[in-house]
């Protein structure tokens, strides 16, 4: 159950790994600044739980092809439940704990991994979430389709994040076009699993406590109208 998109040490050269450590550090600092203003009494404990849940589900590799597995990355899930800034921090914490204590992902590759799976993936996921929640009907299916699409495409984005890193500083000489094709194809399949798990989890939380889903805040905070029509209450 090692790896997935967790880059080991020695795959990408030192200068590029170091540059990405800088990018990840700046991204983490910006996320902390932004998250500060959002961490209220609801979001702070939810954030710890989301990180723990992402860690747990990352251990659950599912088969995608004969001899190939995949697991949840969690960026779309985190972005939906606790928002992009807190979500990126939650996934980063998971990645750092995995690299330092579970030998999953190289320590020198922490910057590469945080950049792909916490920053890039969350950014893509949240962009899609904002657009899709606006376009799709405010129903349970609308939320499920949003979660599935964000999960799928954020996984593919993270895979292409690695392709770029390999093209810039890959130690071995595999052609990057080949790497792009292989990574894209495999992660399209993994992304289907990611999308499914993300949709099931978010819809479940929205059924029990819609106010704990960050992406639905603008709906649940809407003042209750004088004549409530339950059929129209979202999710």
């Amino acid at each position, binding site marked *: 159950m090692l790896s*997935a998109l967790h880059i080991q040490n020695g795959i990408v050269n030192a200068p590029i790994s170091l540059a990405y450590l800088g990018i990840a550090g700046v991204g983490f600092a910006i996320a902390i600044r932004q998250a500060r203003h959002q961490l209220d009494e609801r979001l702070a404990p939810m954030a710890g739980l989301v990180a723990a849940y992402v860690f747990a589900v990352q251990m*659950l590799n599912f088969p995608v092809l004969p001899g190939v597995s*995949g697991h949840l990355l969690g960026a779309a899930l985190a972005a939906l439940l606790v928002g992009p800034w807190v979500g990126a921090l939650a996934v980063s914490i998971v990645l750092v704990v995995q690299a330092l204590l579970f030998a999953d992902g190289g320590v020198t590759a922490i910057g590469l991994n945080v950049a792909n799976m916490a920053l890039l993936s969350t950014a893509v996921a949240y962009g899609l979430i904002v657009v899709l929640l606006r376009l799709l009907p405010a129903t349970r299916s609308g939320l499920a389709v949003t979660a599935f699409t964000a999960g799928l495409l954020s996984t593919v984005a993270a895979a292409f994040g690695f392709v770029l890193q390999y093209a810039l500083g890959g130690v071995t000489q595999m052609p990057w076009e080949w790497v792009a094709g292989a990574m894209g194809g495999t992660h399209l399949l993994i992304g289907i699993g990611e999308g499914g798990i993300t949709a099931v989890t978010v819809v479940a939380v929205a059924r029990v406590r819609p106010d704990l889903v960050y992406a639905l805040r603008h709906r649940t905070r809407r003042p209750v109208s004088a004549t409530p029509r339950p059929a129209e209450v979202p999710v």
Partner: protein
Amino acid sequence: MRGVRTRWFLLGGLLLALLLAGIVSNLASSSPDGLDAVSRQGCEYSRGRITGGECIARSGREHEVGGPLAGYRIAGIDNPYLSTGLAGVVGVLLVFGTGTAVFRLARRDTATDRRHQPDPRNTG
């Protein structure tokens, strides 16, 4: 506030995470995943070691730290189910603890910031 109380929601979520990492993790596929599988393409393997060919994984090195939880196993526990399950439980609790601490710290700083901000009633 409709539905389950926040305290019970959080406790339930944490229990679910512990269950997934502690027990369900043993049902996970042991095939190399995504990047790992792509990294191995082009190389021949024998007993987990590269014996020929060209692939991304050729330049991969041993993990820098390793440690007693390396590979989601607890060193010294031979039963694979127990070893993986316990490593998962330890991991969930560690991540929950670290996450909660980081987010609490960030929150506490906000409270301090607010105290230092000028009172809007005094300006104007």
